[in-house]
């Protein structure tokens, strides 16, 4: 048992920090508001990610034959921690390199690979994830968006998606649509966002400038080779790729930074009294627990073990920690939250609001823990 980072992992983290120090200007927090969904960060990512690519830091976790460095999942996780803590300057390109790209590598046709992978590894391609629908959130298999065979070949897509992050910034939608009557008769499509018939509307939210969208598909023509993998296997593809990614974003990295910033603000005013110390420490303890649970999952992944219920434990713990952090922010820093003057504090607080919803709700994680960890009966 050893909880220390290796020298290689430490130097990798330093490598990332050096690049961030060099590439992010002093006014980054003010301009970005640490909001990966903002136009500013999205635009920035199209310059920043090519720089990361040149530095070998965009896809270091990809296999060498695909342009990566073949670094282990701990290095990948460190990259995520550093990026998330500073406001994700990759914008939604983090999805491109974490799971959309790997899905294309695994299931894509030669043409899809040739066309899309160079743009992903070059740091110029933003994906959005067309999964959730108004009637299909946690119950994704209830989706209604249809892709029907057209007489002229290919598919015609009709339906709508919602909560789609970064849709108005994205180049391509990684879309799930129903291609048959069965509950899981779903296929994955790669659809350019400038395809006629796609209408994108921003859903205003305090989560972020362009965190949420509605995306409407009206007679959208998708060629046969827009399908990723086999027709009807979209569900399996997404489950396989997301299971491989496992925990998702290291949310605690920004939450911990927000708590540190909050403590600094209070100390500067002489307001870091014992009640504040107690709340801050309790939130931080939960963040450390979440971090260790996440890292135990990464350790399993690094050792080639299959996904287990531990992933849900880690994800649920991230949510629980975020709740305690929100309690601390709201009780002791409420004026600062209202005034919205500190972008890091504001971003950390904003993120706590969505942590039980994004990427699988807290309730779905608890269902999975009950089923896979506690082995409780379903009946």
């Amino acid at each position, binding site marked *: 048992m050893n909880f*220390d980072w290796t020298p290689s992992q430490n130097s990798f983290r330093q490598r990332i920090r050096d690049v961030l120090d060099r590439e992010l200007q002093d006014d980054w927090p003010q301009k970005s508001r640490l909001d990966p969904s903002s136009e500013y960060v999205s635009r920035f990512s199209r310059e920043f990610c090519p720089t990361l690519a040149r530095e070998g830091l965009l896809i270091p976790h990809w296999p060498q034959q695909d342009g990566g460095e073949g670094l282990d999942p701990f290095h990948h996780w460190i990259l995520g921690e550093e990026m998330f803590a500073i406001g994700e300057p990759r914008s939604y390109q983090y999805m491109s390199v974490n799971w959309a790209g790997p899905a294309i590598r695994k299931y894509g046709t030669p043409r899809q690979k040739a066309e899309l992978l160079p743009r992903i590894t070059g740091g110029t391609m933003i994906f959005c994830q067309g999964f959730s629908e108004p009637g299909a959130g946690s119950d994704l298999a209830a989706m209604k968006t249809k892709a029907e065979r057209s007489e002229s070949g290919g598919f015609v897509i009709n339906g709508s998606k919602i909560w789609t992050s970064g849709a108005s910034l994205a180049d391509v939608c990684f879309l799930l649509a129903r291609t048959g009557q069965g509950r899981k008769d779903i296929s994955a499509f790669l659809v350019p966002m400038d395809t006629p018939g796609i209408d994108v509307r921003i859903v205003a939210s305090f989560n972020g400038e362009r965190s949420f969208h509605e995306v409407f598909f009206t007679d959208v023509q998708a060629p046969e080779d827009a399908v990723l993998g086999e027709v009807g296997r979209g569900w399996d593809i997404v489950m396989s790729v997301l299971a491989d990614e496992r925990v998702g974003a290291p949310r605690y990295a920004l939450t911990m930074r927000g708590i540190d910033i909050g403590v600094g603000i209070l100390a500067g005013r*002489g307001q*870091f009294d014992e009640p504040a110390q107690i709340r801050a420490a309790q939130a931080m*303890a939960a963040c*450390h627990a979440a971090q260790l649970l996440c890292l135990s999952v990464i350790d399993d992944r690094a050792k080639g073990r299959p996904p287990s219920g531990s992933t849900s434990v880690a994800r649920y713990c991230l949510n629980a920690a975020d709740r305690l952090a929100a309690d601390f922010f709201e009780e002791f820093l409420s004026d600062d939250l209202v005034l919205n003057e500190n972008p890091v504090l504001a971003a950390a607080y904003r993120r706590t609001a969505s942590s039980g919803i994004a990427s699988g709700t807290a309730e779905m994680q608890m269902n999975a823990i009950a089923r896979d960890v506690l082995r*409780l009966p379903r009946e």
Partner: protein
Amino acid sequence: MDFDLTEDQALIASAVRQIVARHLADPTSADFVLNAPVVERELTENGFLGATSEMGLGPVEGLLIAEEVGRLPFAIEAATSGILGRAILDAHPVRRPLAVALAPADGPIRYLQGGGAAVIITDDDVRLLQVEEQDVERVPAVFAYPFGRFRRLNVDKAVVLEGVAPESAKQWWRVVIAAEIGVAGRAALEATVEFVKQRRQFNRAIGSFQAVQHRLAHVATLVQGIEWLTRRAATSGAAADAALAATMAQQSAGLIHADCTQFHGAYGTTLDCPLHFWAYRLRALRGELKGLSHQSVEAARSLWPDAVAKQSRAVRPA
């Protein structure tokens, strides 16, 4: 970073688990505290208990042993001697059970009994006392641990542990608290999961109701979080890690106790139900070393020393 036990650690845990497994069956006599001299002797003879170890075991191994021993309903002191003892007592000969208390040590103390030993933490030093029968009286308590109280305590008669700072002793005490809450929480959870699989109401196992499942899932998350924080604290020997582990543990102990008892219904409050051996330990541990607020403040001091110092200066009268 490696979350797996080393080969030696795994062997130790496995050996203790085998001994424990032979005694895991429900106790036949219901009492608030169960002693098990046979089990204790077997563990001692195999070198798994105590503050000094011929096998060279340290606090991490002490924790792993305590994780296994704590699954038993019996009150066997393994954590204080195995973790705190091995961390600070060095070569001092120490009897078991080992108790720990803050001076003046005038309240009930877990595992304080004649024939054992006690670590007394004063403001200035840390002392070790061999406890004699006439020094203590038994305190009847419902908390599944044996408690004793000093009839008279002459701190001056205790041996001062040179080179051991009070803060160091408190740090390792925090690891002990977290370890004991983690293992009692794990045992309470496992007992509750088994119970809700068997107990049927409305023609179905109550463990199939989502309301029950979600709360036990939450408990499972708390227990796993405590376990990893404790393992890290025992491994790193860092003050902040110990304070964070104890904070998380004492913060969670009440909820773990409440939900595990709740799902047993009235049965869970009886001595017929073995749950109380772990659930009531959780209650006892909530107040140890001045309780959650104290550990939280200590964690804040470790994490943000400058901010806490600045605050102290700000409130100090001119």
